[in-house]
């Protein structure tokens, strides 16, 4: 057990050291332009960032949904041998329900990019 502790100690200390050393010892010369966003050197055209169109959130949300579904497959795969054949039925039901959600999203046109 102690090796794990040692590994965490070394990497932790080294990590924080490298991050902080720059802040402590690094030269600090800030000027007003340094904090403005980098727009290829030309003055930026909008002072506020406008909201991103809704379809991006939709894609992110759907990805999250089906990614979590895949995450549950990993522990199932480990114990798959012990449970035997009923494990297949449990997982098939689980995937079927999510497939319904997938078809619903498809029919609703969530994956349609160009309107």
């Amino acid at each position, binding site marked *: 057990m102690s090796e794990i502790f040692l590994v965490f100690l070394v990497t932790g200390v080294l990590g924080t050291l490298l991050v902080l050393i720059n802040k402590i010892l690094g030269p600090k010369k800030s*000027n007003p332009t*340094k904090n403005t966003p*980098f727009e290829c050197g030309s003055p930026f055209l909008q002072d506020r960032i406008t909201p991103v169109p809704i379809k991006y959130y939709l894609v992110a949300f759907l990805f999250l949904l089906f990614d979590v579904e895949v995450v549950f497959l990993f522990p199932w795969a480990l114990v798959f041998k012990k449970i035997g054949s009923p494990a297949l039925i449990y997982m098939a039901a689980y995937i079927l329900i999510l497939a319904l959600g997938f078809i619903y999203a498809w029919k609703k046109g969530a994956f349609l990019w160009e309107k």
Partner: protein
Amino acid sequence: MGKIKPRAYYQETQNGGFIATKINYMLGWGRKYSLFHYPFITACCGMEYMSAACAHWDFDRFGVGMTTFSPRQADMLFVVGTISQKEAPVLKTVYDQMCEPKWVIACGACAVSGGIYDNYAVVQGIDKIIPVDVYIPGCPPRPETILNAIEKLQDKIQHQKQDWQWKIKK
């Protein structure tokens, strides 16, 4: 041509003593061989920059290969080509947005002194806008001259005064 004679910007006696000079030496060695350069290319010298950056002359051998296009990650601003009056504020903004420590190489006669364009439209040398470390003459400079300039800059970085805060009277 032998070791380059130390110049004015060398550090005199180091107030931090032996340790500081050693750290300073290692810091200089680390910085000089990992220069991330921001290619600020506008005109004809860009063609010689391409030759110097590509397979035949390849200044990646000197550790300058990493081309970053954001001033946040850049150490060295490689100003290549003519800087017109309209481009001057762009250059100033990009220079200000670079993080310390930063260096500037003015490549080509137009960046050094306005070159053959002495008229209403061209800034007569970028040191009128931003401080410059190494000037490369030539219109366009041959790739070997660019490599030589990189060596000069690396020598300057190696022997630079201590700029990290330890025992520096504020």
